[in-house]
């Protein structure tokens, strides 16, 4: 009984620890300006997707009122209506968030899972497993993705969960390759070797010791592949090959093109879904790129230094130089410390990327 309780306790502790880690992590992303933009927009999009029926002022599927055809943006129809069916574009845009996010994020997460598991297997088990997985990666690399997706939807159908499956089946390769090379490094690290010597099982080592070492990479990959898949999904629906029952941004664009938006100058019909795709892809990409910077800070320094130089307080620099002289050393503490603080505060807001 006591044992059970302690297990429960431990699981709870573990979960709390993970949650805290995620919290710290989000805070870290938040501390970059780019990350702030990304997180804000993503949160907004998620809220819109969840509360779509409450936010949308009209039924996006409603094609009954023929007098509403082709209205330009106004206070009632914020983004106007479609030329051929008179649907409210703002409401369609709101509903379109759902399919884009569901397909993008679900595929992104699944890709992170599949890619990391296969990558860890390839790297850690090695041998035949490794060569098999890497051969598959090489082969998938040479088959053009969008045409293959089209073939597969032709064969398997166009439900959006099938589309997600297809994206996952095709999307894991890049990540698994990266994870594999990371694992090869970790495998030779002392703490993994120590665990091996202590008799830990292969799976245990993979899950407890190796996967956590790749967590940053996974979040980056999830964000970036979600963004990539949103573009791909939009492209697919644009070609009329997405889920035929759902309202999606790609399909809206295709309808706009087919419905004569270009010809009759209905710019709102093109711009609206385009902005939707842009915002979604942009925000996920920002998060991915901030992650990349956290992982690989060298890239970031390159332009950051120049910004620091632009915002440098020359009086403070002068003080620093003067404080280095032997006879003035004693005076530095009180006088310049306050200036330094003030400077650092402006730094905090003025310098990023």
């Amino acid at each position, binding site marked *: 009984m006591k044992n059970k309780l302690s297990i429960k306790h431990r699981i709870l502790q573990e979960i709390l620890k993970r949650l805290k880690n995620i919290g710290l992590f989000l805070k870290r992303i938040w501390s970059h300006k780019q990350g702030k933009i990304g997180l804000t927009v993503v949160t907004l999009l998620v809220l819109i997707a969840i509360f779509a029926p409450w936010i949308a002022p009209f039924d996006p599927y409603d094609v009954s009122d023929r007098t509403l055809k082709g209205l330009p943006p106004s206070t009632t129809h914020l983004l106007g209506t479609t030329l051929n069916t008179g649907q409210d574009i703002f409401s369609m845009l709101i509903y379109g968030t759902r399919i884009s996010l569901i397909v993008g994020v679900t595929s992104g997460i699944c890709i992170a899972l599949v890619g990391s598991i296969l990558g860890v297997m390839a790297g850690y088990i090695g041998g035949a497993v490794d060569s098999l997985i890497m051969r598959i990666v090489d082969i998938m690399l040479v088959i053009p993705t969008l045409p293959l997706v089209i073939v597969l939807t032709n*064969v398997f159908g166009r439900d959006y969960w099938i589309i997600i499956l297809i994206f996952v089946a095709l999307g894991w390769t890049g990540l698994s390759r990266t994870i594999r090379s990371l694992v090869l490094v970790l495998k030779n690290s002392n703490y993994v070797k120590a665990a091996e010597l202590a008799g830990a099982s292969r799976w245990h080592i993979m899950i407890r010791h190796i996967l956590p070492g790749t967590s940053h990479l996974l979040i980056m990959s999830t964000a970036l592949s979600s963004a990539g898949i949103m573009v791909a999904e939009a492209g697919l629906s644009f070609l009329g090959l997405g889920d035929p029952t759902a309202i999606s941004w790609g399909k809206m*664009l295709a309808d706009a093109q087919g419905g004569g938006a270009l010809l009759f*100058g209905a710019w709102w019909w093109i711009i609206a879904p385009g902005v939707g795709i842009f915002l979604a*892809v*942009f925000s996920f990409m*920002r998060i991915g790129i901030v992650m990349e910077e956290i992982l690989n800070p*060298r890239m970031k320094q390159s332009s950051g230094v*120049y910004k620091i130089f632009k915002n440098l307080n020359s009086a403070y620099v002068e003080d620093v130089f003067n404080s280095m002289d032997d006879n003035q050393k004693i005076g530095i503490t009180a006088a310049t410390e306050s200036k330094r603080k003030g400077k650092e505060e402006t730094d905090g807001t003025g310098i990023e990327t």
Partner: protein
Amino acid sequence: MKKSYVIKRILYSVFVFAVVITLNFFIPRIGVEDPAERYYPPQGNMSEIEYEIIKQATREQYGFDVSPWQQYLNYLEGLTHGDLGMSFRSGSPAVADLIIDRLPWTLVLSVSTMLIGLIIGIMFGVIAAMKRGRWQDTVLLNASTIMIALPSFFIALILSFYLGFEYEIFPAYTDPNMVSNFEWTFASLRNVAQNAALPVLSMAVGSIIGYAQGTRNAVIAVTNEDFILTAKAKGLKQNTIRYKHILRNSMLPIVTSLGMSISGLIGGQVVIEQIFNWNGMGTLFLEANNMNDYPLMMGIMLLLSGFTILAILVTDLIYVLLDPRVTVGDKR
């Protein structure tokens, strides 16, 4: 040592191509019990017996009357002399002929996109890296932040809306007679160039930004290397350092990314061709998809994959020429 790497690399490409051919043959057949039914879906006004007769005729015509394994061998045999099978279109034209008709038109788009992307992209990238932190760099960074999130088909729609319909600078739809009336005359070539302008532009924007960003990062990474400090300490002139030491080293990652980007370029082009009604392989592929014409789909996929394999092989070999360090398995 290098020679053996090259031979291994080529053999490996052949192996990959063989696997791709096989996959390509079997994937469209998944879940299809009778290919003849695909070719000729059941019709309401037809009796069972009539339908069966038609299906049997189809099977014989397309060689579906033997086992899948035998079909595969026949397909391979056909490939050796360039026979990609027969299309399901009316008149059963050879897939190879259909593809060859469209291939040059697709190449016009992809090659010009690639060239424009590479040349302008590398130029911008080098400029941004050299002017790091100044406005040139900031413009590139901001442009790439935004452009990277804009799918090429949306750019295409916008360009076609403004440059095509609003201001009528370039044709928004490809001239349907462009292909049939084509001659090797200046007027005809100009017509092609005008029609290709918007599709190429819509794809090139992303390409330029991508290569520029890649070049910039590569150049900056190399500039921070120790051997550049050595070159400076040697008293070499700025231009010697730039061209002999920095640029050559920063071309290495670009060459690699070039091979990788080809597959994406092909995918994007399918959508762009569709938007501008360009008579290339992309539109051919979509037509084939709509008609369930899978011999044709297979043929196109095979060609596209073959292309990508070749491109990756070539860029890998160029890489070997550029980087003396490469030996087997050393690259990625």
